[in-house]
């Protein structure tokens, strides 16, 4: 939706993913969109350097989220929300209907 503006499909994917999931890591985002891991990592790094995202390490994973101090955050999220409303329903469902509640270790499905 925002390709002409963002210049890259993966840029938009990263931002939309984090908009809906609030946080995420490259090995989670890349397979969701069937994108290359390197391409997603590159976008995450670009947005972090630009101050739009921040990250923290959780174990060996680098977890990314929006930077609450980014001055255009409200406006950016509004734009992304608008773009997201045009996404196909199945993509929106997949993004939003992920498990968030805790899961005990070794619990059978």
């Amino acid at each position, binding site marked *: 939706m925002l390709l002409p503006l963002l210049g890259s499909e993966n840029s938009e994917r990263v931002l939309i993913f984090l908009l809906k999931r609030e946080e995420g890591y490259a090995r989670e985002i890349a397979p969701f969109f069937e994108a290359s891991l390197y391409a997603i990592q590159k976008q995450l790094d670009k947005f972090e*350097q*630009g*101050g739009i995202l921040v990250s923290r390490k959780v174990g060996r994973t680098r977890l990314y989220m929006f930077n*609450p*101090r980014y*001055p255009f*955050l*409200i406006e950016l999220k509004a734009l992304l929300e608008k773009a997201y409303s045009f996404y196909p329903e199945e993509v929106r469902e997949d993004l939003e209907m992920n498990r968030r509640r805790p899961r005990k270790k070794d619990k059978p499905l």
Partner: protein
Amino acid sequence: MKEIADMTEMELSAYVQSHLRKQGIEVVLSGGGAVTIYSENRYISKGLDLVNIYAVNRRKIRAAMNELGFQEDGRYFRHPETELFIEFPAGPLAIGGEAISNIVEKEVRTGILRIISPTDCVKDRLAAYYHWGDQQCLVQAEYVAQAQEIDLQEVERWSEREGMLIKFQNIKERLG
């Protein structure tokens, strides 16, 4: 002119800023480096954040820094004669949702330093405390407030706009 090896955070910042300014690159000292200066060295940061306020191309910054003997090392620039390192965070110059327009200028021996105000420095540290619960940043805000005159009413107004009035009220006495 002082050797780079002997320059303080303030002197090195002014030196780099003055060189960049001649090339049309405006940067403003913020972050931990500003805390070091305003806290009168109660907090020491080796990293100097020179915010690239008008989004000048990185290549142009790199070329100017190379002229001073700095080499790019990932997102930082380092010089063989000093432990201090420089980063150019992306602009705009803002704290939370608000732009910073009150930039302080100080003339030092190595050039003109452009730095955020002590009040904005406190807000900058509090932003990290408000959003991430970073206690170290709260302590840094205290150091700055103790060493400099700051406008607490302005900090309160800004905190309210950030939706953080209750958190501000809880720590207000530590800044007074």
